C-alpha cells in the first residue's frame, strides 16, 4: 500500500504547510502602472543592493488594477504601494476607505513626457495639438456644418505637414496615457483650432466637449491595447504610422524612431521640466501608512525612491527618461513626516 501511504502523507504535508504559514512578509510589495514600472524596478534594484532589506517585489497590471488591489484592505497579502500614472479617483478613495485603507500617502516622483514618433527614415513632422484634433476627431466642423472627418492625409489637415496618409497608433482606453492624450492633445487641439466654439454654436457646451474627445473609427486611428513595443512593431510594419510613446521608450529606441515636435518644441527631459513641451503628466505612487513599521523597509524604500540619488536631476531615473520634479525637496519632507492625503 505504499502508494496510498505516500499520497496520504504528501497531502497531509501540503495541508500542514498551508496551515503553518504564519511568518510575516519581509519584503515590500508594489503593484500598478506599467509606465511607472521601469522606474520602480530601477529603484528596487538599487535598494536591494545597498540596503539590508530584501528587494521589493513589483507587479504591473496598469494603474487601475493596481489601485484596486491596493484598496482591497490592510494586511500582508495586499500591496503596500500602488504605482499610478494618473491621480487616484474619488471613487477609489471611497473604496479604499470602505475597506479600512484610510491613511494614504501620495508621493509624486516626477513627470513623464508623451511623444509622437514615426519611422526613423520617414518624413519629419512638426505638430500642434490642433493638427491631431483635426486628423483624429470623429466629426469636424466644415463650413458651419458637422461632417464625418474627411481628411485622409496630413497635408489636408495642415498644408505645412508632409503629404502622408493619416495613420495613428494611440494607446487603448485601458491605459492611463490615453486619458492624458485626450486631455492634453485632443481637447487642447479642439479649443485651439476654434472647433470647440463652432461645436458649441451648433449644440450646447457639454455635447461639444464630448464631440471634441471622440476619435474617428474608420481605421485611420488604431487603439493599441498592448505596450509600446507593440506600437513600435506596428510602425515598423507600416511606415506611414505615427505612434504615441512615453519619452523614456523613445529615448531607448532612437535608432528606429524619429520624434515629432509639438507646438515647435522638441520633447526632452529639459523641455518637459521647463513646461515648454505641452504633453506631460505627473507620475506618482500611493503608500499605505498603516503598513509603515509593519512591513520592514517600507519607509526606507519610499525615502530612497524620492532621494536626490534616485529621483534627482542627475539620478538614474532621470537618465532613463523621468523628468525630475522641481518640488522634490517638498516631497522628501512630506515623506519624512509621513503626511497623508
Amino acid at each position, binding site marked *: *500500500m505504499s*502508494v*496510498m501511504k*505516500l*499520497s*496520504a502523507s*504528501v*497531502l497531509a*504535508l*501540503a495541508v500542514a*504547510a*498551508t496551515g503553518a*504559514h504564519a*511568518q510575516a*512578509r519581509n*519584503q515590500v*510589495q508594489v*503593484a500598478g502602472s*506599467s509606465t511607472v*514600472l*521601469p522606474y*520602480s*524596478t*530601477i529603484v*528596487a*534594484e*538599487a535598494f*536591494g*543592493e*545597498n540596503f*539590508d532589506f*530584501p*528587494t521589493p*517585489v*513589483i*507587479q*504591473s*497590471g496598469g494603474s487601475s488594477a493596481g489601485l484596486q488591489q491596493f484598496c*482591497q484592505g490592510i*494586511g*500582508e*497579502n495586499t*500591496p503596500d504601494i500602488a504605482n499610478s500614472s494618473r491621480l487616484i479617483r474619488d471613487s477609489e478613495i471611497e473604496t479604499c476607505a470602505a475597506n479600512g485603507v484610510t491613511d494614504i500617502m501620495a508621493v509624486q516622483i516626477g513627470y513623464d513626457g508623451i511623444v509622437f514618433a514615426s519611422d*526613423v527614415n520617414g518624413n519629419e513632422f512638426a505638430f500642434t495639438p490642433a493638427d491631431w484634433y483635426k486628423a483624429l476627431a470623429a466629426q469636424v466642423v466644415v463650413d458651419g456644418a458637422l461632417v464625418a472627418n474627411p481628411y485622409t492625409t496630413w497635408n489636408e489637415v495642415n498644408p505645412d505637414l508632409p503629404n502622408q496618409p493619416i495613420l495613428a497608433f494611440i494607446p487603448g482606453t485601458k491605459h492611463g496615457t490615453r486619458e492624458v492624450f485626450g486631455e492634453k492633445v485632443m481637447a487642447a487641439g479642439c479649443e485651439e483650432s476654434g472647433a470647440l466654439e463652432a461645436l458649441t454654436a451648433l449644440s450646447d457646451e457639454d455635447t461639444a466637449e464630448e464631440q471634441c474627445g471622440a476619435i474617428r473609427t474608420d481605421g485611420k486611428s488604431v487603439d493599441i491595447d498592448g*505596450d*509600446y*513595443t507593440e506600437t513600435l512593431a506596428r510602425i515598423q510594419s507600416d511606415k506611414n504610422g505615427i505612434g504615441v510613446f*512615453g519619452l*523614456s*521608450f523613445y*529615448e*531607448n*529606441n*532612437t*535608432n*528606429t524612431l524619429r520624434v515629432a515636435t509639438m507646438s515647435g518644441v522638441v520633447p526632452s527631459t529639459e523641455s518637459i521640466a521647463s513646461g515648454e513641451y505641452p504633453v506631460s503628466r505627473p507620475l506618482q505612487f500611493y503608500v499605505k501608512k498603516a503598513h509603515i513599521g509593519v512591513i520592514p523597509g517600507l519607509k526606507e524604500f519610499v525615502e530612497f525612491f524620492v532621494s536626490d*540619488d534616485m529621483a534627482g536631476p542627475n539620478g*538614474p531615473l532621470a*537618465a*532613463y527618461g523621468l523628468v525630475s520634479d522641481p518640488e522634490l525637496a517638498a516631497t522628501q519632507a512630506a515623506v519624512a513626516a509621513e503626511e497623508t492625503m
Partner: protein
Amino acid sequence: MSDISSHRERGSLLVADARTKRRNAAEARFRAYGMIAIGVAMAALVTLLVSIFGNGSSAFRQTFVTVPIALPAETLDPSGSRDPAEMAKVTTIGYGNVLKAGVVAAVREAGVAPEGIADNDISGILSQEAPAQLRSMVLANPELIGTTVETRLLAHGRIDGFFKGRVTMQSAERDSNVTPERLQLATAMRDAGMMSSGFNWGFVTMPDASDQRPEAAGLGVAILGSLYMMAVVLCLSVPIGVAASIYLEEFAPKNRWTDVIEVNISNLAAVPSIVFGILGLAMFINFAHLPQSAPIVGGLVLTLMTVPTIIISTRAALKAVPPSIRDAALGIGASRMQTVFHHVLPLAMPGILTGTIIGLAQALGETAPLLLIGMVAFVRDYPGGLFDPSSALPVQVYNWTQRSDPAFVERASGAIIVLLVFLICMNAIAIILRRRFERRW
C-alpha cells in the same frame, strides 16, 4: 446461386479499369493532401524555431570587460575595520566611482583610448550592474581591499549589442545611451584583449534586472520559481488524480452520479486557464490568506488545472489493462484492492506517468492564471521556499517582451529557448517511459 463475377465485365488484372484508376487517383490525392498538411505544419514550426533561435541564441553569449581595478582602502573601508557590516555602508555609488577611476586608468594606460575621448565615455562601456558585482565581490572577501584586482565585469548592453550586430556606428549617433567613440574604444579594447565574449552562465543563474541593465538580466529566479511550482503540482495532482481515477474506474458504481462527475471532469479539462487564476485569487489569496506572488499559490492553481488532465489519462491507462488480469487475480482469491494495487496499477503505470508528464509540461508553459495571483512581477531575490515571492519562466518571457530596451528582445527569445529545452526534456522522458515500460495486449 448465380455467379456474381459473371455480371461484371472481365478485364485484365494488368490493365486498370476506369473505376480502379479513379480509386487510385483518389488515394494519390489524399496522400498529397496529407503531405501538404504536414508541410504546412512543418513550415510553421521551422519559421517559429528559426525566428526564436535567430533572435535568442545570442542571449547565451555576453561581452565582458577584464580590467585591473585598484580598491582604495580609504573610500571602501573608511573605518579600517575590514568588518563587512561596516563596509556595507559604502553604497554602489561609492563603488561606481572606484570602478570609474579604475577603468579610466586601465584604458589610458593600455593606450587603447581613441584621441580625446572623455572619461564618461570610457566608464560608459561598463554595465550599471558592474558596481554591484564589485561590491559583492569585495564584501565577500574584505582582504581584497588595498590591492589591485584583475576583475571581469559585464560590459554595457549597447557595447554587447555592437558586437552582436544590433548596434551600429550610425545608430549610435542617434542613441542617447551610447556614442560612436565608445564603440571605437570597444573595438580597440577587444583587439587589445581587454574585452571578450564568453558563454553567458549569468543568463540562467542571475535574477531579473531593471530596464537599465538588460545585460545583467537572467532567468535564475524564474527557473527556481517554475521548479517550485512543478514540485507542488507533482506532489498534489498525482495522488489526487490517481486516487480519483482508480476509484471511478475500479470501485465506483456506474450510475447517474458518476456520469455527472465524468462529464464535469471532461469539462474542467477544457476550461480556459484564466478561470483557474480567478478561482485561485478568490480561494487561496483572498480566503485562505496565502501570500501574493508565491510559488505555493501558483502551484495550487496549476494543480487545479492539471488534475482533470491526469484523471483522464489515468482512466484511459486503467481501461487499457485487460479484464482478464483482474479476473485472474480475483479468481485466485485476491481482494479488489489487492487486485488493483498489485496487478492493475503497475501495468497502468507507464500510461499514468506519460499523462502526468504531459500535464506538467502544460502547466509549465502556463501564464494566464499566474497573471491574477501576482506572479507577473519583478523579483530579484531568489525564493528560499514555497512562500517567498518568485516569478516563472513563461512570465519572464512575457515581462521581457514589454521592456523598452531592444536588448530585451534577445533575452525574451533566449528565455523561450530555455523553456523549450525544459519542455523537450519532459516530453522525451514521457516517450522513453512509454517505449520502455508500456505493455500491449
